[in-house]
């Protein structure tokens, strides 16, 4: 069977082309992509870099669940989910999600579902480094 799902958690730069090339297909007319990059500010504070830590084995499993839901329930044809870990600098890509579908509405819906769910369920943690310290994002209320 042709591979429909491409999940990667890696320390090297994420490449949009790699995700696009995986999901594109002569039978698909619409592709939606989401790219999450590192912002230079959060709540007014200047960020110097981020570090992402992952429980990689479980992250891959949770990302696979998301991908399967996109294909089985959201009308996606193929999906690529790449997440960067380790140090990530301002403007670098932290996550790429690419979804192809026969029609565009399904591609958008699946892509948005995938990033929303990834942020809720995938065991990856972000530490923000500011000029005067660092902290784990979302850890405390």
């Amino acid at each position: 069977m042709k591979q429909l799902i491409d999940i990667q958690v890696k320390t090297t730069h994420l490449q949009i082309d790699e995700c696009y090339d995986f999901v594109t297909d002569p039978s698909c007319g619409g592709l939606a992509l989401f790219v999450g990059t590192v912002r230079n500010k959060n709540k007014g504070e200047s960020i110097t870099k981020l570090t992402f830590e992952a429980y990689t084995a479980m992250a891959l499993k949770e990302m696979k669940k998301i991908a399967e839901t996109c294909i089985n329930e959201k009308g996606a044809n193929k999906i690529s989910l790449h997440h960067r870990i380790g140090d990530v600098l301002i403007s670098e890509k932290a996550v790429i999600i690419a979804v192809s579908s026969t029609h565009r509405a399904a591609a958008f819906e699946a892509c948005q579902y995938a990033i929303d769910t990834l942020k809720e369920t995938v065991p990856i943690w972000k530490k923000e480094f500011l000029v005067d310290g660092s902290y784990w994002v979302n850890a405390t209320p």
Partner: protein
Amino acid sequence: MELILFGIIKEWVTETDIDLQENNIQTVKDLKLYLLNKYPQLNSLSSYMIAVNQTYAEDNMVLSTDAEVAILPPVSGG
């Protein structure tokens, strides 16, 4: 039982091997109570989850000594 720690929890919890029998821990809930008692900083978290064998675990799940158990602070990927 092996305990895997992540993010902010790694800065608080130091032990990575817990004797279930000695500490009278049978379920995920028992483990949480044990940890909260020993590391009260955990109360300051928005929430935290226990994963058993790389799957989110309910409170009533029974733990075995050969399980891979992880304490997960609130995730913040993406």
